[in-house]
């Protein structure tokens, strides 16, 4: 029997058709993966099932009954729960308070905190999740926060769980744990819909897969009947090279050199210990590591957002210790920050303004303090075409209305188009579809071909392995190993990422 049936569903935003007559059937007790490129309409489709957006036309049936949800509350009432990519949790509250939000247990006016905790812990234990009800959200890892979101839905007795890109922010270990949890939930009779760009995850957990492209239904297939290559082809509509070719490159002078840098976080704990690294012209250097081992802080230190306690960062023979990101960009260092919405974009600013943000003082865009709108619009058009950014015909729209992957492409396009000598990218393809990953990777390699230097920080080991010539592995704020990609293996890096070394002897310069 079908748990969910969607018939001829359409959603228009103004003139733009985001979802175009989609039919979808989800069976009870299956894990159903939704795949598609950035901007294909996956999130929009799911938001309609969850009552966050109203369809323009078409029908939704839940257990055979037609529904018209006005709000998520009604969807939850009908047994549909959704976990968003951006969590909706209150950081200063405890796990149990967040789970019960809106459904507190009270006696008179007073909230029965003890009882609440016990109830929630019961649910957590029932599903065998690794969580402590009394922890505060702000103190637990991203993976744990996601488990809170899932339990929040399960505690409300939903049968259908929708997850929008759940693994985008998780470490590989956390992702494995998540997939195990989802499979266990499926086995206990829940229906699960998962949106993800990572085809290996799809292969691992899904029963069936539905692909959509440009808002249209392409097909639903059984997982066991297809391989990754075939899914990718359905998504993109052409063959996608899943592994990348890059020719050898002769490296030149040192471009950036970090010497024994130490740094502390705002809360006063040391986050970087004696980190030294360098990158040469015509070289791509990767920084690997399980997320949370100091890579983000290294990125911030390199991009002028974190004060150093000691040590020195030298770029083309000048110290850049105290330079602001703006100054660094003026020195031809391109910066792609880890969190596109926090440091990469201004979501309420227009697409075209975001495409020059940080470079808006350049003579080209700003003459005597006056922004050159024509030039800016022209520049935007040009980049959108060159970087194949989808669905932004109107460049005066807010960046916030773009899909996640397209928003990321805006940041990449902006930084690359300024033709920097050194490009520092953190999580360059997070939330980006495979077609676009291929494209971004090619662009990065093109940079190397032009004898530029590139630093890639990524928690995707495969990304670091395919791109880099040389890899530094970080563990607990230290660089614990350095390897030439050609002379190492995924396994060896993986071992280093876990913090295991045996009397490391460094090499190379």
């Amino acid at each position, binding site marked *: 029997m079908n748990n969910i049936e969607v018939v001829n569903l359409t959603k228009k935003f103004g003139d733009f058709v985001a979802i175009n007559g989609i039919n979808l059937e989800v069976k009870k007790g299956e894990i159903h993966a939704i795949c598609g490129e950035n901007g294909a309409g996956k999130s929009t489709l799911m938001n309609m099932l969850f009552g966050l957006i109203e369809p323009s036309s078409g029908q939704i049936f839940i257990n055979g009954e037609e529904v018209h949800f006005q*709000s*998520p*509350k009604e969807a939850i009432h009908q047994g549909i729960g959704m976990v*968003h990519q*951006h969590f*909706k*949790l*209150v*950081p*200063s*509250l405890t796990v149990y*308070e*967040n789970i019960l*939000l*809106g*459904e*507190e247990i*009270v006696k008179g*006016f*007073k*909230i029965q905190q003890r009882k609440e905790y016990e109830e929630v812990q019961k649910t957590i234990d029932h599903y065998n999740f690794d969580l402590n009800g009394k922890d505060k959200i702000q103190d637990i890892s991203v993976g744990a926060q996601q488990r809170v979101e899932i339990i929040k839905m399960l505690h409300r007795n939903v049968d259908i769980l929708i997850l929008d890109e759940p693994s985008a922010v998780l470490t590989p270990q956390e992702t494995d744990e998540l997939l195990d949890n989802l499979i266990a939930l499926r086995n206990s009779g829940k229906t699960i819909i998962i949106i993800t760009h990572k085809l290996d995850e799809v292969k691992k957990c899904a029963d069936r897969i539905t692909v959509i492209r440009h808002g249209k239904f392409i097909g639903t297939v059984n997982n066991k009947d297809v391989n990754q290559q075939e899914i990718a082809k359905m998504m993109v509509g052409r063959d996608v090279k899943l592994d990348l070719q890059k020719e050898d490159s002769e490296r030149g002078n040192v471009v950036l050199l970090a010497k024994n840098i130490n*740094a*502390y*976080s*705002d*809360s*006063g704990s040391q986050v970087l210990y004696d980190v030294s690294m360098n990158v040469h012209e015509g070289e791509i250097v990767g920084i690997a590591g399980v997320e949370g081992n100091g890579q983000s802080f290294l990125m*911030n230190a390199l991009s*002028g*957002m*974190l*004060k150093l*306690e000691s040590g020195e960062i030298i770029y083309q023979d000048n110290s850049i210790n105290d330079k*602001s*990101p703006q100054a660094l960009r003026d020195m031809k260092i391109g910066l792609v920050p880890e969190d596109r919405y*926090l*440091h990469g974009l201004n979501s309420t600013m227009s697409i075209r303004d975001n495409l020059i943000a940080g470079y808006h003082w350049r003579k080209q865009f700003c003459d005597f303090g006056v922004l050159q709108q024509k030039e800016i619009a022209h520049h935007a058009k040009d980049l959108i075409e060159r970087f194949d950014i989808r669905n932004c015909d109107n460049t005066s729209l807010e960046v916030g209305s773009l899909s996640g992957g397209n928003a990321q492409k805006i940041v990449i396009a902006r930084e690359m188009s300024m033709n920097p000598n050194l490009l520092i990218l953190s999580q360059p393809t997070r939330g980006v579809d495979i077609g676009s990953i291929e494209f971004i990777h090619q662009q990065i390699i093109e940079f190397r071909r032009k004898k530029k230097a590139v630093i890639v920080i990524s928690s995707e080991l495969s990304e670091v392995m395919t791109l880099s010539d040389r890899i530094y592995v970080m563990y607990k704020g230290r660089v614990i190993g350095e390897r030439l990609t050609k002379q190492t293996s995924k396994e060896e890096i993986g071992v280093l990422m876990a913090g295991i070394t045996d009397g490391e002897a460094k090499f190379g310069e």
Partner: protein
Amino acid sequence: MDELLIILHSTFRMTAPIALAAIGGVFAHRAGVLNVALEGMMLVGAFTGVMVSYLTGSILIAVLAAVLSSMILGLLFSVFGITLKGNVIITGLAINTIVLGLTAYILQVFFGQRGVFSNPKIIGLEPLDIPILRDIPILSDILNNQTPMVYVSLLALILAHFVLYHTKLGLYIRTVGEKEEAAYSVGLPVNKLKYISVLIGSFLCGLGGVNIALENVTMFVEDMTVGRGFIALAAIFSGQGTPIGTFIFSFLFGFADALQIRLQSLNIPGAFIQMIPFLFIVLVLTVVGIISVRGRTSRGIKNE
């Protein structure tokens, strides 16, 4: 020693209006609404209190009317700032300006007074002599014989703490202020919660205003709140939005006020003495500011 007790007694007296406004303001602050209209809400409370006391001769009706007038402003603020999504700072400042002008205008047009309105018919708030408290040494010198609002301010502190941390309402208010999307995602009535928060604030501001006008002096003077609403805001920020912290800072500011009054008998130009509370606030805010940025290592925007 006696001197100290007198100053402490007067500190509680001076603290009451600031603390009432500040503790009231804590709710809007926690709901993520910056309410700069605390000042105007107090002033309208002071004005209405005096007028109604003069007209009816009943202190009870006067207090009720003061609270009502202040809450009407709260509603006005909410309609413009929350429902219509106007800029809350501009809305708040507009309310302050309107109240300042309107009270002076009414005073002149209807009561023929310029700047000050004082009349023997105005009934004030009498200090309370509390049985058990009066027999406790020291404490009685500090806390006995205060106007009712001093006790109300202490009660407000306890209630605010309970509501904010032990009831659904408080939990929801904190949720709305800290993560609005979380509130939306479980269907909490976000706007209604913001309204309630603002109205709790204006309720207490009304009481604070009455206290300024009807304790001790029993008269209305143009702009007689002289920035206490903003001092209350400073107390909220310094106290990081907790009722207890807010009260402590209100008390500190009240102390500076009391000190200023005490020093007025000295032979120093009055204007200098009157600066003391404000200098003190600048000092406190500077210290609070330095403490909060100390040890920060990230440049630019802080990761939230």
